[in-house]
């Protein structure tokens, strides 16, 4: 698949039209997606927009909006007016969005065409897209393996070459880990950089939307379209909220060696070490850092996130929208609707969240986790005085087999390197650092670069130099 900037050039020159690209994408979905199941719904009627975009290029040429005619796949927890927004849950199986999310409005204004909704773990809870109420998505690079999650359908749609980019959401690694498993670039902006208005909330203090792409330049382009202050999301930040980290020629990279000492697949660690060596040969400085609190971040995350989940998902009551199971009294309607509408992982997290927020345990769990979060922010602030970026592998393993991770705790450990980023609100990017072989198949693995708050532009700039310019 061509990158967005390559498509753009061909659209302007007339070598290729948005309509051809759209039709090719539909064809590719029919050919490949039966097996992979990245899409929950394909918007064939969007062909009209591809026709209009094709006509507009004839008149407007290079002055056309930056994403005109570019087909995008959208994770199904992002609202597009008039389309189903299911969050891959039975409770929203027939829910049709009544308005556009802010990021959808912005992408539309920039000329993007939404070609379909992608599968995900139910309400974005999971790291494998196995928790979808509508069936698993397979990894296009090895159909016996998961594409990662929760934005697994978005990642698979790009990895299959159907679309040049897809939109995902990231609460604890849900953009970055699937990017790692599918050989893509995945970007999680600074918390507040991108509006959450019109996203189906999971953990409101953690969620951010971002792109999955084939190049860092494409991720940068999409991010530039969707980022910005939004009157409908009071947590969005403006350009003065954080000190903007300037772009430099040479950087200092911090490696939390102790944090990486155990629990990582040997091949992943070897690939990571090779990546670090390549940075040295490019003239960057590499130093060893200590992040003692980060190692415990996962524990804090699996308190804060379920707490927010239990609150956010309380709105699904069978009254105003979504599934409603008929029963004799109000309490039974609630209980039966939620019993039938939610899947196992969602129920597990709601129960856990209810527990950590209950009066007897609030201080021991939620209160402590919020304190830990503040201390992690302080720890990070201190570290970023001496390094520009922190590096880790994105995930401790390459893509695992479908059905392999049955123990919920083992699955949660997949998130060990990604969740501290969401807990502290800093930006991070994952891009491929190499491949590891499993059963004769080369599987991609990603490296994660973490920057301080407001370091988004610097992060994208360095990743562009290292990844996009690698050849």
């Amino acid at each position: 698949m061509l990158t967005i900037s390559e498509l753009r050039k061909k659209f302007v020159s007339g070598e290729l039209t948005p309509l051809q690209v759209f039709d090719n994408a539909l064809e590719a979905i029919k050919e490949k997606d039966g097996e992979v199941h990245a899409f929950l719904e394909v918007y064939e009627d969007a062909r009209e927009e591809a026709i209009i975009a094709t006509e507009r290029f004839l008149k407007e040429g290079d002055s056309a909006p930056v994403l005109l005619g570019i087909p995008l796949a959208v994770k199904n927890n992002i609202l597009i007016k008039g389309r189903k927004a299911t969050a891959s849950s039975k409770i929203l199986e027939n829910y049709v969005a009544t308005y556009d999310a802010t990021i959808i409005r912005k992408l539309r204004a920039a000329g993007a065409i939404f070609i379909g909704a992608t599968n995900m773990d139910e309400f974005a809870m999971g790291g494998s897209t196995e928790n979808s109420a509508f069936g698993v998505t397979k990894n296009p690079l090895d159909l016996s393996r998961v594409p990662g999650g929760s934005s697994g359908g978005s990642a698979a749609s790009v990895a299959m070459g159907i679309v040049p980019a897809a939109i995902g959401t990231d609460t604890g690694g849900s953009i970055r880990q699937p990017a790692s498993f599918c050989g893509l670039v995945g970007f999680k902006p600074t918390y507040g950089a991108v509006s959450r208005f019109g996203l189906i909330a999971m953990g409101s203090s953690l969620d951010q939307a971002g792109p999955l792409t084939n190049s860092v330049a494409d991720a940068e382009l999409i991010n530039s379209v969707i980022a910005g202050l939004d009157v409908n999301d009071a947590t969005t930040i403006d350009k003065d909220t954080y000190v903007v980290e300037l772009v430099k020629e040479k950087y200092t990279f911090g490696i939390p060696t102790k944090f990486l000492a155990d629990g990582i697949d040997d091949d992943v660690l070897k690939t990571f070490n090779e990546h670090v060596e390549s940075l040295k040969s490019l003239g960057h400085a590499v130093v060893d850092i200590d992040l003692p609190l980060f190692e415990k971040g996962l524990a804090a995350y699996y308190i804060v996130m379920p707490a927010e989940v239990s609150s956010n998902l309380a709105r699904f009551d069978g009254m105003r929208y979504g599934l409603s199971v008929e029963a004799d009294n109000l309490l039974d309607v609630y209980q039966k609707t939620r019993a039938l509408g939610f899947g196992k992982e969602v129920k597990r997290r709601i129960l856990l969240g209810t527990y950590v927020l209950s009066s007897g345990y609030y201080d021991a769990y939620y209160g402590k986790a919020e304190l830990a979060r503040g201390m992690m922010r302080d720890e990070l602030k201190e570290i970023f005085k001496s390094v520009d970026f922190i590096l880790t592998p994105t995930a401790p393993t390459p893509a695992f087999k479908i059905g392999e991770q049955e123990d919920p705790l083992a699955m949660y450990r997949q998130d060990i390197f990604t969740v501290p980023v969401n807990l502290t609100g800093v930006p991070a990017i994952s891009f491929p650092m190499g491949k590891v072989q499993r059963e004769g198949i080369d599987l991609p693995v990603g490296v994660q670069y973490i920057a301080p708050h407001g370091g988004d532009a610097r992060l994208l700039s360095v990743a562009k130099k290292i990844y996009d310019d690698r050849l």
Partner: protein
Amino acid sequence: MNQDEVKHLANLSRIELSPAEIETFTKEMSAILAYVGQVKDIVDGGVSKVPTVGLRHNIFRKDEVTNTPDQYTQDILGEMPKTDGRYMVVKKILNTDT
């Protein structure tokens, strides 16, 4: 954590659980809570302080109407499981039998 506690949580969460679910969740929740309990080590080992309020707070938007009358009404009514004209139908919450 025992089965009665899980039943109580399910009741607070307004989720009906099957006996099989209660059994599985009881086992899993104990393991998960033992793991997340590590968070105490972070806080007890360091200087704990009150969490800081976010950099941006008390954000208000202008107090003005941004939609036209009935702009979203039909779409929203259309999503409701049960309606009566422009009203949503809900179960009664007061028991008048006693």
